[in-house]
């Protein structure tokens, strides 16, 4: 029972990275833009956050640097695909490759730097509940922030006027344009918000999750986050659940090994990716499910006045 609670705690922690990045990409895609550059943005944000934490000792500044770095890269991508109408998929891939190389180059001098462990935050009262208390309510603030962000985003998309406009821009940019909304600027704002959240996820990895900098340390989490948005059929709550599911599978495979369950380690290592594929296949079996939620103009260029 106690080990289950601990597994749960580790799952929440591992899922937080995916949830933050997944929510960011959700905002992106709701505005009709696919950004395959998530991995690159996360890596650049990871080194930006880590370097800031090393020099200032402030986690808040580190997270801000991560968000800034992610948003900046997203802005460059946004200008390319929204104004110059370059191919979104090719530009996103280029962003990923650039981010991987650039972060490695900038990060060379930080590979020997170190950060102390980051404090966790106990919610008064709740943290003292036996068994689940310490697991659920004694975590880094970012873990709770991911949950709060999910709720806020769900409210924003479905209950606020601005959210409605954002969705309109993703569904039918021509109609939104005809109604007088600045489609390109709105899309850029969404892309930058998405990049900022991916950046926050990247900074969380290098500052809190594994407080060190290593080249390529996000290890494919950006790609899983991309799959997560489709898996969640573009709904915030499902992104969060999916993130915990993937985080859980990752932790479970180590947990099972520790318990002495005989499965080849290589098979266990591919479980999270296998789970991604299985889920994608399962939801593709019901095309209406995807079609209802998928932003109708996702990935399509928009020419105003055309």
């Amino acid at each position, binding site marked *: 029972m106690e*080990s289950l609670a*601990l*597994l749960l705690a*580790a799952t929440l*922690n*591992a899922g937080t990275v995916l949830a933050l990045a997944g929510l960011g990409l959700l905002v992106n895609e709701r505005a009709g833009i696919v950004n395959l550059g998530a991995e690159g943005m996360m890596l650049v944000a990871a080194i930006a956050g880590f370097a800031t934490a090393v020099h200032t000792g402030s986690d808040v500044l580190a997270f801000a640097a991560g968000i800034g770095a992610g948003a900046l890269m997203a802005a460059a991508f946004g200008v390319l695909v929204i104004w110059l109408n370059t191919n979104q998929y090719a530009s996103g891939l280029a962003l990923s490759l650039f981010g991987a190389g650039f972060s490695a180059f900038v990060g*060379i001098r930080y*590979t*020997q730097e*170190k950060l*102390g*462990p*980051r404090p966790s935050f106990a919610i008064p009262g709740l943290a003292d509940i036996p068994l689940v208390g310490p697991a659920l309510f004694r975590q880094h603030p970012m873990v709770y922030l991911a949950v709060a962000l999910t709720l806020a985003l769900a409210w924003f998309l479905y209950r606020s006027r601005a959210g409605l406009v954002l969705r309109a821009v993703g569904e039918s940019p021509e109609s939104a344009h005809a109604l007088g909304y600045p489609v390109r600027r709105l899309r850029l704002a969404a892309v930058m918000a998405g990049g900022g959240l991916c950046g926050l996820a990247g900074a969380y*990895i290098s500052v809190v*999750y*594994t*407080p*060190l900098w*290593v*080249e390529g*340390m*996000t*290890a494919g*989490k950006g790609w899983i986050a991309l799959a997560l948005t489709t898996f969640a059929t573009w709904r915030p709550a499902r992104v969060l659940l999916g993130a915990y599911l993937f985080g859980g599978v*990752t*932790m479970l495979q*180590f*947990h099972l*090994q*520790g*318990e*002495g*369950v*005989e*499965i*080849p*380690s*290589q098979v*266990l*290592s591919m479980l999270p990716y296998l789970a991604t594929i299985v889920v994608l296949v399962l939801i593709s079996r019901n095309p209406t499910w995807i079609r209802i939620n998928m932003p109708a103009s996702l990935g399509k260029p928009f020419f105003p006045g055309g």
Partner: protein
Amino acid sequence: MNHPVSKRSLFKLAGWSSLAAAAALVGCGKKEEPPAAAPTAAAPASAPAAAEPLKAAWIYVGPVGDAGWSYAHDLGRKEVEAEFGDKVKTTIVEKVPEGADAERVIRDLAAQGNKVIFATSFGYMEPMLKVASEFPDVKFEHATGYKTAPNMRIYDAKFFEDTYLAGMIAGSMTKTNTLGFVGSFPIPEVLRNINAFTLGAQAVNPKIKTKVVWVSTWFDPPKETEAAQSLINGGADVLLQNTDSTAVLQTAEKNGKYAFGWDSDMSAFATKAHLGSAVANWGGYYKKTIKEVMDGTWKTERTVWGVKEGQNDLIKVSDAVPEDIRKKVDEIKAQMKAGTFEVFKGPVVDNTGKERLAKDATGDQDWRDKIDFYVKGVEGKIPAAK
């Protein structure tokens, strides 16, 4: 029309220029390292004996800044520079994947006139063997392998001596009697470290059991973090790893548990959790090799040095370790130095109860190369290797 530039020659031109581009790319990954020692002033310019410096090259699997495996090898290279000054010229290539790229890099280095090439990861063995047959005048050195050629030999270290000493400390510091080990790949090199760690712990505390988690990588900090966390969740309170980053140590620090540094001195990364660092000092072997190449006494052999030769050691033992345990560790270390202590000495029983080494027999190199079992006290079964 009789134009000299036909379509075919255009194709040829394109082919050659892409080849040139590829060659330039290979060159990009390489760094020329100037000798560390200052050149002696006013060397006679026309001295006939002032021969060309000996060119030596190192190939690393990780970044030199990994604070672990590649970093330790690079410290050894720097010792070579300090010792031989401008009589050697060293080159390094970092982050070479253990595949087709490795063969290209090794061949490239040989073609550039390097007289001795050190490949410092297990996966470079086959590519190096292939290139060695093409360059009979170049000496090839492979770390941790088992295949040799007339101009290729192997060198290794007895890391299991370090892990035995670490085990003695772990066994005395644990409160749960459960140790945790983050393993890279289930190969003999790693299995004997797990076994020696457990045997060392049992030497001071017979109730010890060891849990093992495999991550299928040498270097992936988030994964190492998750593996360490799951071991701690499972009750382990002293951890050791056969992976190259500081992540396991840092995870232990975060959870208020103990762990060890690996490959190099990692004491700076965790003030409370760090119990000691298992380090390798490759400099001694590298200096010996360079000297042999210069003297022309180089010959094919297999070198496995240990604590006795100063090749590896457990350093920076924490003050948190009780005095009597430190004394015991020092005693065993002294015996290792004298060559009177064997880590794998019979009876060795595996965790299914089968005897693997009879009473008073010692596990020699050949026996250690074939370890495919956990000793008694290690939990679980080894996942299918290879």
